[in-house]
């Protein structure tokens, strides 16, 4: 599994806020994606109704997931694929290592797959002596830097063009040192040339899947670069790595989800390439892989079925929740400390690695609700984060001082007369102390707030008192 730094979220976030390169990279791209989503949504009047339909399709599939998985396995096998079920990340890694070994593989190309990040596949394959090459351009950039993706659809969103240029000059030493790399097009052309070689020499191609279709046993990938297609068409073996919740019943159901996916993700009406693959090459196919394996991963997901967290399994990984999140757009994806950042990560990460390690994540939310507002699958993300906060509290992971504070607050808030009495005393005092400056720069017990901003001073009288006066007819 990828290294987990979620327990260190607070320090990660602080470092991210002070990282000027990161702040520059984050200043435009996520907001641009959010704006484009808005325009795409406006171009499809049925968008909201399609969201309802998408939610219903996934709910139906999850309620019958056992049967749709069986059906997928039957149809994929009929088409010549080998279907493997992996209960854990380790099982998935070992299945894939075995396939690579049996294929006598030396070079493995990969299309973008978050599941592969989740199971820590690259490190395991490299330990086996394989050369592993990420082919999605953004994923290639993070791979050559020894990093992990900071966004589920734009892995290198945290990098600036200048950083990429420096990396290419450092890594691609066989190219002339005086070559011009000013335009993004020049950088893309260089990566194209380097990766084209890898596509042509790879023995095994590994892709993820956006959907698995029970009707036909097909797996679906969505890309703009076409890298996934070269990955799955050129090598002699194609391995699909997907998790159980990618299942959908039919081609018509997938069509509805496709109408939602790209619009929510990048604001395109559809991604450039949406590819359905079914089995290995057929008898009269002049190209395509000779063998196709589908590895279906559980890794803790089945434990969410039947719980309040089942809804999170509807996610189609579009990234809209992070593009619209005030926390994500301020700190980027790495601060979240594991594979899935943003609001979906704040719900999914505690489920997959435990709330004990990831308890900070569901707390890293202003509960502004924009994630739920834009989620194409209508996942109630803030509500699920609240569930995790409760689980963290009842599991004893909340720090003692915090617990005492919450208990004291609850004791006061649940007794209206005590509450009003206290407020009536505290308010005029704070009002008098802060009247000259109009706000407080430092306050005892409120350092977390005043470290980054001032607290406005109360004006002296409580709302309740003013309301009572007004009802009694006292002139203001």
């Amino acid at each position, binding site marked *: 599994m990828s290294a987990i730094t979620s327990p260190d979220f607070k320090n990660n976030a602080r470092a991210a806020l002070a990282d000027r390169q990161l702040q520059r990279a984050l200043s435009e*791209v996520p907001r641009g994606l959010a704006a484009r989503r808005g325009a795409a949504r406006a171009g*499809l*009047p*049925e968008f909201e109704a*399609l969201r309802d*339909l998408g939610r219903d399709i996934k709910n139906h599939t999850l*309620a*019958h*997931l*056992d049967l*749709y*998985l*069986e059906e997928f396995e039957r*149809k994929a096998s009929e088409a010549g694929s080998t279907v493997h079920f992996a*209960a854990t990340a380790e099982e998935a890694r070992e299945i894939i290592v075995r396939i690579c070994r049996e294929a006598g593989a030396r070079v493995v190309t990969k299309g973008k797959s978050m599941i592969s990040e989740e199971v820590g596949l690259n490190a395991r394959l490299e330990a086996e002596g394989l050369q592993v090459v990420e*082919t999605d*351009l953004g994923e290639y950039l993070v791979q050559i830097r020894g990093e992990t993706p900071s966004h589920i659809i734009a892995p*290198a*969103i945290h990098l600036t*063009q200048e950083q*990429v240029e420096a990396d290419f000059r450092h890594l691609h030493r066989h190219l002339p040192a005086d070559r011009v790399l000013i335009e*993004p097009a020049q*950088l*893309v*052309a260089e990566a*194209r040339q380097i990766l*084209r070689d890898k596509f*042509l020499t790879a023995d095994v191609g590994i892709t993820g899947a956006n959907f698995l279709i029970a009707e*036909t046993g*097909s797996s679906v990938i969505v890309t*703009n*670069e076409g*890298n996934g297609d*070269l990955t799955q068409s*050129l090598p002699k073996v194609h391995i699909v790595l997907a998790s*159980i919740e990618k299942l959908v*019943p*039919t*081609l*018509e*159901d997938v*069509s509805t989800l496709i*109408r939602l996916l790209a619009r929510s993700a*990048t604001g395109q*009406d*559809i991604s*450039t390439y*949406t*590819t*359905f693959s*079914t*089995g290995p090459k*057929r008898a*009269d*196919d*002049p*190209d*395509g892989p000779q063998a196709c394996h589908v590895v279906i991963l559980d890794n803790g997901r*089945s*434990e969410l079925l039947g719980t309040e967290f089942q809804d999170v399994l509807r996610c189609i990984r579009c990234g809209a929740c992070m593009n619209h999140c005030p926390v994500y757009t301020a700190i980027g994806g790495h601060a979240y400390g594991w594979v899935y950042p943003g609001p979906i990560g704040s719900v999914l990460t505690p489920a997959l690695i435990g709330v004990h390690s990831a308890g900070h994540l569901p707390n890293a939310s202003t509960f502004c609700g924009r994630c739920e507002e834009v989620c194409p699958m209508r996942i109630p993300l803030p509500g699920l984060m609240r569930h995790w906060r409760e689980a963290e509290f009842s599991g004893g992971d909340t720090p003692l001082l915090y617990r005492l504070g919450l208990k004291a607050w609850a004791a006061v808030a649940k007794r209206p007369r005590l509450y009003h009495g206290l407020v009536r005393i505290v308010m005029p005092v704070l009002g008098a102390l802060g009247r000259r400056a109009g706000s407080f720069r430092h306050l005892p017990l409120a350092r977390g707030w005043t470290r980054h901003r001032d607290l406005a001073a109360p004006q002296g009288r409580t709302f309740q008192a003013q309301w009572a006066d007004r009802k009694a007819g006292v002139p203001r």
Partner: protein
Amino acid sequence: MIARIRQGLGVYDSAQRRAVVAKRLAQPLCPLVPERAKRSAEERRHQLRTSLEGQSATFIEVARASDIPAAVARMLRSANLPLRVRTGDDPFLRGLPWQTEPALERTTGSAHDDDEVGLSHATAAVAETGTLVMTSGAENPVTLNYLPETHIVVVEDKTMVGGYEGAWDKIRARFGSRAMPRTVSFISGPSRSADIGGQLVMGAHGPRRLCVIFVRG
């Protein structure tokens, strides 16, 4: 894994649940097809063209199939490309009057790294989003879609459909129900990436140039 899922869902393997699933697979539901996927045949051509052009593809219309060889040669000359295309064993493409363009060389088979131009025949074209539907096989090898820098795709008017659902009808009619070729590719423009600095660049790994030749007759 199946047992764990049933336990989580709190369900059993019942005949009633199996019937629900069997029905859904036998009769796929499409309760909501957007208006933009249901336009008239005349509007569809315009919709296909404007969508594809909006996605940085070029769109050439010809009146008859016999005009295709000349359109291909003209397009290659205007783009300063060699008059050489790689193509599959598609009967429709094979039957065109290529002798009218003697300088245009055609070789047949899957694509190689040094093929500059691929020529394919679309199984369907979806007006809704300007999407070409390609099916793999000896007639149109899948690598032609992705390896050459320039991809020319011939679309016949009669294969045009409003939405994705129409494309599935055509695929089922050709390959049978619940069956697919190895690859069905939806292509909606040339390859692109915005991974460097958020700026859109054409020709990431697949074709830099996508040219659609649309045959009206």
